[in-house]
């Protein structure tokens, strides 16, 4: 059916990232507009190199505290299908580099950690992003 509703697990290399609240993954390329003299709007558009950014929010701040900036590993998460007939889906971002850790401790609510990763393709060709049905 293609609907997914529950994050079952998130791992970064060997490290589990428990109590995940959300995972946001963006694959984005900057537009490079071009136009001739006197044109008011772009007449051609090219895209810059795509950048894959993943943001993971979780409540297990202790797990986040154990990570180091610059650490690189495969980031993988599995989301369960919204119905019993469909399979879970596992998304993997290989070569993810941890670039930011934000820890928020609040008085009236539970503490949260936000981790941001950027993917790196060592050979410059292989797409770090892959997704498949879980076994």
């Amino acid at each position, binding site marked *: 059916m293609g609907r997914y509703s529950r*994050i079952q697990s998130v791992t970064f290399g060997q490290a589990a990232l428990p109590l*995940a609240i959300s995972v946001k993954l963006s694959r984005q390329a900057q537009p490079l507009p071009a136009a001739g003299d006197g044109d008011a709007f772009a007449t051609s558009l090219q895209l810059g190199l795509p950048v894959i950014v993943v943001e993971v929010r979780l409540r297990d701040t202790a797990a986040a505290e154990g990570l180091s900036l610059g650490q690189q590993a495969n980031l993988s998460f599995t989301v*369960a299908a919204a119905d019993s007939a469909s399979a879970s889906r596992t998304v993997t971002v290989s070569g993810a580099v941890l670039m930011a850790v934000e820890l928020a401790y609040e008085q009236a609510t539970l503490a949260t950690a936000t981790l941001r990763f950027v993917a790196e393709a060592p050979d410059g060709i292989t797409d770090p992003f892959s997704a498949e049905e879980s076994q």
Partner: protein
Amino acid sequence: MASTTGDILQDMVAALRTAGGFALVTLGPAGTSTAVPRAAVLYEGTEEFPSDDRPAARWLRIRAAVSVHTRSDDPAEGCARASELCQAASEALMADPYRNGKCSDLPVGRATELGHWQLDESLKRPEVEISFAVRCHLEMAEES
């Protein structure tokens, strides 16, 4: 789940007994008892929420009310006495908000939360009763 709810309600009864000021503490209405001062823990229901950080868990909110009943011919004195008892009951309940390890602070609410005190104005002198809501929150693993 039923036994967990029962355990939490029993823990509240035990906590109220430690407050020391009550001649009688009951789980459910006190029935025909005329002992005063007395307190009763009244179960009102359970609400269920999906966990937003563990896929195989549910969050429960157990709603109860604690009523504190006393008696005095002087309305002002009766109200003051009931207020003192309510304060003692509140402090006893919040001495261990985690209800002996069964409850926890969750995004849907603190382990134990107390509501406002409400005077039962329908009672006739010398009876005085003040009640307040109690909400307990806990996480339950999904039953397979």
